[in-house]
């Protein structure tokens, strides 16, 4: 079986660089799953949970907020502005963030769009905080 390697990079450092059995990433319009042997792809990421399964079946999940994914040969590179392990997100702060965003005022179209986007991110972060 071909192998799959995940490289998770943020602007600050490389968080993760090791072989995995399979992984799921949140794309801009839904999820995508990768198994070894995936055809080359470059995709835009949305906010959501990056779920990976190691060779021995254990799984880890990270909450990521936008960025890109590149599949090239056996290497899957995920570039994102921030990645936090789901277990590290506290429900309370996630809830607080959602309330804060909901309370913001949006007047122009641009502001409204940005607010809608941030509400979506905050909701997904809250969902991510709930699991594990």
């Amino acid at each position: 079986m071909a192998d799959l390697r995940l490289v998770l990079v943020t602007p600050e450092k490389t968080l993760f660089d090791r072989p995995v059995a399979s992984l799921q990433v949140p794309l801009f319009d839904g999820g995508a799953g990768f198994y070894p042997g995936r055809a080359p792809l470059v995709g835009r990421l949305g906010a959501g949970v990056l779920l990976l399964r190691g060779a021995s079946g254990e799984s880890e999940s990270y909450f990521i907020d936008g960025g890109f994914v590149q599949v090239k040969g056996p290497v899957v590179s995920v570039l994102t502005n921030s990645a936090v392990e789901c277990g590290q997100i506290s429900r309370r702060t996630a809830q607080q963030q959602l309330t804060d965003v909901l309370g913001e005022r949006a007047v122009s179209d641009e502001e409204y769009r940005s607010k809608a986007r941030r509400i979506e991110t905050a909701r997904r972060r809250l969902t991510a905080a709930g699991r594990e």
Partner: protein
Amino acid sequence: MANRRLLVKRLKAVRNIRKITRTMELIATSRFKKAMDRATEAAEYTRKISEIVGDLGQADLRFSHPLLEKHAEEKRSVLLVLTANRGLCGGYNAGVLRQSIAHLRGLRERGVDVSLEVSGKRGIKFLNFQKIAMAQSYMHFEDKTTFAEVNVLATRYVDDYIAGRIDRLDVAYTRFESSSKQSAVVETILPIASLAGSGGGAGSGRVDYEFLPSAEEILSEIVPAAFRARLFKCFLDAIVSEQIARMVAMKGATENADEMAGSLKQQYNRARQAGITSELAEIIGGAAALG
């Protein structure tokens, strides 16, 4: 006699200063190592971004994005100056400030409205003293500057540039070239001159990518991401260079203190010997007079 006591006092003072500068040197060394590690880790992201940009280049795509386009006239520009919060780092702050003042003059002579944004107490102090007005000043960028902090600035610049509120963004900082060479420079980072130069993966040949949602969409996202990474790199470079500058300055100070302590000790010994000789001469003179 009084001279000798004075020498002892000075010697003590010099030794104390040496202790301080030596400690600062060690601290700067360890901070430099940490900053250097951070900078190396951050380079990976930039490398990946340029790899993807290179891949996009193979997709027969015209690179067009508001951040890549030069505005027809340059009316308003922003100059971001990155200095340190602390001094005692040799010519580090002075170098950056000299470059930025020259650049500021040049732009203002051409009739460009420059708004000055300064990070670091040293720069703020200097410009206040020169009575040069600043639009913004930041003091929270320390040696553990995170991407999230820089991102706030980057987002504002991107929005301003796209909306046409600014026509140009320059950053004055100390570029890290190698651990023995850093130079103060002013770089124009908006409009983006070229995306990632040669564009990464040349060796691996063509790969037929599937683009989700499309190559254009990816491009429109990756250009701002490249800009953000670039701005973040400026901050990281500045931090590494500051620690190197401090390390070198403190090494020099420690060596000077050593030298000074040596010469003071010698002077003290001579004075002491002179004292003993004159005392002996007095005793012998006294004995001779009695005999």
